[in-house]
């Protein structure tokens, strides 16, 4: 194992803020895209299935 402890892993040799700041924002942005794209598809589907003519 490269890292002696969890604390050392999180510290990233003093660059923790930069490394985890990159990965956390990436993960959040991708999660947001997943939520938005699924909601858009659901809304498009609902707009069709809820129409009076079907």
């Amino acid at each position: 194992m490269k890292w002696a402890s969890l604390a050392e892993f999180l510290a990233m040799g003093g660059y923790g803020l930069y490394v985890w700041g990159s990965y956390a924002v990436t993960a959040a942005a991708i999660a947001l895209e997943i939520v938005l794209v699924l909601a858009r598809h659901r809304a498009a589907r609902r707009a069709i299935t809820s129409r009076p003519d079907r």
Partner: protein
Amino acid sequence: MNTGINWFRYSSPQAFYPLAGAMAPWFFWAAAVFALIGLYIGFFVAPTDFQQGEAYRIIFIHVPAAWMSMFIYVVMAFWAGVGLAVNTRLSAMMASALAPTGTLMTFIALWSGALWGKPTWGTWWVWDARLTSELILLFLYFGFMALQAAIDDPRRADRAGAVLALVGVVNVPIIYFSVQWWHTLHQGASVSLTKSPSMAASMFAGMLVMALALWLYSIAASLVRVRAIMLERERNADWVKEPGSAPR
């Protein structure tokens, strides 16, 4: 050559809609698996960089996102161009579906680049050729989406967007070669097709696996988005409207 498969079948939304729906989850979960492998390599296998220490580990998200930001733009412009040339409905929808994911990749590349620049260059941002051209790419994506949103008639929106996308393609080689053409702060390519990579094999492997993960993810997100766009645009078409053909 007759393969027995009618490939043109899938150029129609009613045929592509269920196909895209069947493929999207596979691409998504494959992306998740590769992301886990890539992160494992990046954080537990790849060694510490002798110059940058652990800060370099941003590379495993930065470079793959930057690659995807350019690649998605080219694919988007390709589909926009096909739509412009042969007027197929699905091509233009593909272009529209790719733009938000391309924007996301560009944002990730710029964000992670800023967080990498601060500890290594001492600044979040410089008006370096590579950074500036990548920022222009972000504006091209925004411009494409804003232009399409501003035009009510979808066919006209497609054509206007396609012209913008195709003109903007010139920016992609500028981004790629910027580090050779202008000697500014951003480092040169660590990976090229002609030379072996100037980094440890495990670093290179982590980057490739993460690139594969983002590529698979981008396909999954675009497939779901193109399904939404198909329903939005074709809501009055028979394949959407008819009872019993309820889109899933």
